[in-house]
């Protein structure tokens, strides 16, 4: 019997989700990094 994978039949993504362009996705990743660094800095200062 042939193994069927419904997920594999989905068309591949061509555009980024949530954003109109890839630039939005890139800024999300870089913004997340900036947020984490600020958060970690605050944690370091609070618990020093």
């Amino acid at each position, binding site marked *: 019997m042939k*193994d069927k994978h419904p*997920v*594999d039949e*989905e068309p*591949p*993504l*061509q*555009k*980024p*989700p949530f954003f109109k362009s*890839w630039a939005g*996705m*890139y800024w*999300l*990743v*870089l913004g*997340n*990094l900036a947020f*984490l*660094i600020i958060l*970690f*800095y605050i*944690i*370091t200062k*609070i*618990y*020093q």
Partner: protein
Amino acid sequence: MRPLDWIVLLGTLGFIVSYGVWKTRGSKDIEGYLKGDNSMKWWTIGLSIMATQASAITFLSTPGQAYEDGMRFVQFYFGLPIAMVIISITVIPIFYRLKVYTAYEFLENRFDLKTRSLAAFLFLVQRGLAAGITIYAPAIILSTMLGWSLTATNLIIGILVIIYTMSGGTKAVSVTQKQQMAVMMGGMIIAGIMVVRYLPENVGLGDAVAVAGKMGKMNVVDFSWDWETSWNDRYNFWSGMTGGLFLALSYFGTDQSQVARYLGGKSIAESRLGLLFNGLLKIPMQFLILFIGVMVFVFYQFNQPPVFFNEGTKSKVYATAHADELRGLEAKYNDIFEQKQEAVQGLVTALKAEDDAAIATAQAQVSTYTSAGKEVREQVKGVIKKAVPEAETRDTDYVFISFVMKYLPAGLVGLLLAVIFSAAMSSTASELNALASTTVVDIYKRSLKQDGDPTHYLNASRLFTLAWGLIAIVFATYASLLDNLIQAVNIIGSIFYGTILGIFLVAFYFKRIQGNAVFFAALLAEAVVLYCHYFTDIAFLWFNVIGCVAVILFGFILQGLIGKRKKELVA
């Protein structure tokens, strides 16, 4: 190990291996075997990338690193999200346009065969060594803690990986990594919850973090820079953002074990999203693992820790004439802990009362007892060195597994061992798959046998997977413990990655530099990195920057000389 632990461990591993073989049965062509028929969705790619990077060493060593050194290791990953963005913009479109199987194929297109072969060779050397360590690192720890034979443990990990990697190739690696990531993250989160639950009743999570902070373990970010000393500091913001960025660019952009993960995507968009998924989640994941290590540290402020976490080594010392000396030090260490208990409880009370003066007093007392404890631990290490000269005296890799074995209930021990085995298998599978595809595509098919049919290359890929698996097992069996295991892997990577990255950066951005110049520039750069490693104190993360910059600089100089010589010859 109790029966329930065995059931959980064997059931988890058996399911993952069987699933990998079943899901990818009948791979009949080289395209499917090496690129997974370009059928991978972004979440599979993202999880696969994370599982490839997260080896067993990550789960054994990282909590121990936090126990000893606090949270600052997380800074090592600060360059990673930036690297994910750069690779998504520049590298992925080129690899897709050229329809390459390996990253090194691109180099022949841009330069020449010898540069492609050099990069493939550097990759095979460093990844071949790393694959051995990926198996060896958990095997040595598990065999010591569980009393298993080291060779048998190496064989179990190696053979399980070889079975499904040989059978299904890239797709088997990626589909099993989804299950492995679920086991790994599920297991670690449960372990984190358990360690917080095991804290005394009057100590909540907030109190535990506050105690850790007062004991110097919540040092997540360090922006300070000193021109005299910071170059030798492995983990600060600046080394993470520069060295970490270069290491991540090399690892994700040029290391076939990662490139193969996203080359199997259904489209460029799926591959990009898989990488960006890693860019979003990698730092929080490492933070979580380090945080669990810090919580284990806090747990041992209220529960007697062993004077030395590697019980196997301790047993060896007990069998020598130094046994009484060790017992004496152990008793002294336990006494110090008893006295420290009162000071730690005083610190908790002072923190709850927000009484700054009392906090300072308690902190000073705790610090005094901690220093005394550390002194005794150093003496213990001295005794171990005298009694068993070949023994490794670093025990941080044993901290987390020692906690798991001693304190977690039946079933969870099996689950946490499954986490470690899954992690070892996921990264080893990617490595074997990448080593085999690079050997077949860049060496065997390109330079040794160009007239084979697809079935021949499929069989060759399977045989090279088996061969690299056996080499890794043999290397693992004869490897000796190197400093801290996670650092050993990163040091080996850093020695070669900078040069490989330099070659790729020249290929992408410096069109003026041609094949001969970049080839000899790479050889000179590798010599510079090896000199730095053996004859200077420069922290290994900087090797990535040095190797990369050296290739570019030497490339420009040599290209200039070659151009000048050509002009002279023409004239």
